[in-house]
């Protein structure tokens, strides 16, 4: 059983095709793993019931070669709608809500043969960097249960790191796939804005949100991304004519690649272990024959301020729909306004209220030009700057997070210290670019540290090619995991 849950997706598919194993056995193995560990980790808000065994059994009549994700168990972040089971967005205001439709990304996974094991925990409405803002529970980092898994896709990251699913879907608005991937020692990627349909993703910031895969290695992420990406008529912001074929990428190595490192990285406050591992990564890729150059990109601290203005402005608009009228929690009142105000006051958690109020502030009369319009101009400047870098370079490389995982509760009283977790991840969202985090090593406390690659728009194949090469150099799974291959 331990062996089954240690298989990569590629290995699992090979085993299915050779007839060595059946979906029911695999799903049972993962369910047992979830039962064994969920009490300590709390990765899931909802674990699929016995229907999932019937879904696995039905696959016995299907040729394994006909489905690209035949019998692959996946976990889905709970801000992604799934008909037939609850979708809460980690919020009391949607407690018990059952979406009447399934998100396109999940529909594509299931049509490709994947089996949904459950819905994972997240910071409420994807707002946070530790998963502690969930209304239901905190999730523990499988590497050390006193530590946070990162966020907002912390449940998905923890589920994959603990071997509860070989892959999971997360969502990334300012780093919410990449940062928890880094903190939990797994791979997480976000594609170009518009590469994956947002239909069925509960909106946080519509011009920044993207669904993306998390898995134990780069190739598995690429397999998932190939299935979920591509134009969707239900999402008018999904790119027309876009298709990824990433699972065949990865043979070309790092030699000859031109990699840019922003000069601002050096001046950023970060843990010594992050700085050490990043510096070693730069030398290692140079030794492999890549050319590394330092580039001047607009300050990372300006980009994070830009992000917090834009994302919260959009959130204040997107979350206006949670008013107690059509779905979710309602606090009854004699007046309509009273119902809205009390429903939202009670139904939303503290961080969500903070962000809605900040978003309202920057959009309000008298402040709109000074904050929102200015942030939009800075976004244009950042996009142009990144565009210029990608004329000369193939990739930008940075740490993913300034620190390894932090202790649960450590940053709750200081929202800004939490926001600074996103300092290296927000630029890719603001510029709409594809980015990936892969685990590079461990801190002295044996907590994972990730390195991030960013590519030009629609250049996911370049991203994955380089990431496969870097993954081989890091050798994280061979060097940093316990002998049996699972952390906990």
């Amino acid at each position: 059983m331990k062996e089954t849950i240690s298989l990569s997706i590629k290995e699992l598919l090979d085993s299915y095709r050779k007839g060595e194993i059946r979906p029911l056995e695999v799903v049972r193995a993962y369910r047992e793993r979830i039962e064994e560990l969920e009490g300590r980790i709390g990765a899931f808000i909802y674990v699929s019931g016995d229907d999932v065994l019937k879904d696995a059994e039905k696959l016995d009549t299907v040729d394994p070669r006909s489905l690209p994700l035949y019998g692959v168990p996946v976990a889905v972040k709970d801000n992604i709608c799934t008909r037939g089971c609850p979708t809460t967005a980690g919020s009391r205001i949607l407690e018990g809500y059952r979406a009447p439709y399934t998100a396109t990304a999940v529909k594509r996974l299931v049509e490709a043969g994947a089996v949904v094991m459950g819905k994972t925990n997240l910071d409420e409405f994807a707002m946070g960097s530790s998963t502690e803002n969930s209304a239901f529970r905190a999730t523990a980092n499988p590497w050390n249960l006193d530590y946070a898994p990162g966020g907002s896709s912390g449940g998905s990251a923890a589920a994959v790191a603990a071997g509860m699913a070989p892959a999971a879907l997360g969502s990334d608005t300012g780093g919410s796939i990449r940062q928890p991937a880094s903190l939990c020692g797994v791979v997480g990627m976000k594609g170009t804005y518009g590469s994956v349909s947002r239909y069925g993703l509960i909106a946080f910031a519509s011009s920044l949100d993207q669904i993306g895969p998390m898995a134990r290695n780069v190739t598995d992420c690429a397999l998932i991304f190939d299935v979920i990406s591509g134009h969707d008529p239900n999402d008018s912001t999904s790119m027309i004519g876009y298709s990824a074929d990433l699972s065949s990428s990865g043979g070309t190595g790092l030699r000859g690649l031109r990699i840019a490192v922003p000069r601002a990285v050096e001046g950023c406050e970060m843990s010594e272990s992050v700085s050490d591992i990043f510096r070693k990564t730069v030398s290692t890729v140079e030794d492999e024959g890549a050319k590394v150059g330092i580039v001047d990109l607009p300050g990372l601290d300006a980009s994070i301020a830009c992000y917090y203005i834009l994302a919260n402005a959009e959130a204040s608009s997107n979350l206006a729909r949670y008013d107690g009228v059509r779905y979710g929690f309602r606090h009854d009142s004699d007046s309509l306004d009273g119902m809205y105000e009390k429903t939202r006051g009670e139904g939303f958690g503290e961080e969500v209220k903070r962000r809605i109020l900040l978003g309202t502030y920057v959009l309000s009369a008298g402040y709109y030009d000074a904050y929102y319009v200015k942030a939009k101009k800075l976004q244009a400047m950042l996009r142009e700057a990144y565009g210029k870098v990608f004329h000369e370079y193939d990739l930008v490389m940075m740490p993913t997070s300034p620190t390894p995982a932090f202790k649960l509760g450590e940053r709750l009283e200081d929202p800004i210290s939490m926001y600074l977790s996103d300092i290296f991840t927000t630029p890719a969202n603001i510029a709409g670019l594809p980015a990936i985090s892969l685990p590079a090593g461990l801190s002295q406390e044996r907590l994972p540290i990730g390195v991030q690659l960013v590519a030009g728009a629609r250049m996911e194949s370049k991203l994955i090619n380089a990431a496969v090469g870097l993954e081989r150099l890091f050798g994280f799974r061979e060097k940093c995991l316990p002998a049996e291959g699972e952390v906990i």
Partner: protein
Amino acid sequence: MGLTDEELGHLEKLAKIELTAGAREKLREQLERIIEFVEQLPNVDATAYDAVYNGNELKLSLRPDEAIRCLPRDEVLAEAPGSIDGYFTVPAIIDSKDG
């Protein structure tokens, strides 16, 4: 730049969120610090640029003007906190004495 209690009250009204008396002051202070944090934005000069308003330079794409299947009303109403005869119900918005 500070955030006064009056300004916070204005934001509450705009956002339709009622804050408890106990939470107000702490939230006001936190928001003040966050506003200070994002206020470094004006230090970067992006005046030469036009504001960007879409995610990936897409032009608006329209679908054919044909009726398509939409969500079944009963399924949608099943999630409503209150409904009667196919309608969502809410507190009265017209005063009965106004007719």
